[in-house]
């Protein structure tokens, strides 16, 4: 589900090695004082097919998924549509 800002934070991982991808996750966790449990990988095409948009910013490889509908239940539907297309990867040893 997107946060109240309706900007769902993501990182582009195309071309990165596994350890580099996990390092991004650990860094995000450290900054927000949370433990990394896993990640969800999704293709940009799936975001577009869900009629959402990817808005890149100045942070390297960072973007937000935006364009969420107004209605709460419609947001919920888009969230589960994305979840269905994402692949969950749990942290090893976690």
């Amino acid at each position: 589900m997107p946060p109240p800002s309706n900007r769902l934070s993501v990182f582009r991982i195309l071309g990165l090695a596994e350890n580099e991808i996990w390092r991004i996750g650990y860094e995000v966790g450290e900054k927000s004082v949370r433990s990394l449990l896993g990640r969800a990988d999704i293709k940009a095409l799936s975001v577009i097919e869900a009629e959402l948009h990817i808005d890149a910013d100045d942070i390297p490889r960072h973007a937000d998924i935006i364009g969420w509908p107004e209605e709460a239940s419609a947001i919920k539907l888009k969230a589960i549509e994305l979840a269905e297309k994402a692949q969950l990867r749990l942290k090893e040893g976690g």
Partner: protein
Amino acid sequence: MSVAVPCTGIDCPSFRVSRGEGLDQDSSQKVVDSVLEVIAKMWDSETITFGHTLNEALLSLLEVYKDCSQENWDGYGALAIPYGAYEEAGKLIKLLPSSIQIPEITAEPTGEIGFEWRRGKGQVFVISVRGKNRINYAGIFGDNKTHGSEYFEETIPSEIIRNLRRLYS
């Protein structure tokens, strides 16, 4: 459904079969009483669905509420789960039909308590409450999708029950 009735601690009825007449009345009553005792113990755990009791669901709900009752609990500005959402979620859990599997319980960044039922790929139904007498819901059933909002106070809205049965049909 069959119930295994233990004999330890109670008088085990004697299963005398005499000329095809089966149990005597006293023994029959003992069997009925022991079956009722087992059922009473099952109902003491209130609801047993797919191995998860109602009490386990309520404990899970409490943990979610405790973990997410502060602002920014996810580090991305998530709203705190209000006590009203916790109360409403507990009421909803207790109203779930016993034939419905206990859902996965989560906190949503909008400050709602979410319930998710999943039955394999492409079969998922989620609802959420915030303590405002409203259930927001969305579901994917193969190629079919649904979403909406229903008023909730004393009984689970029929639309929610319909979609749950749809998921498990």
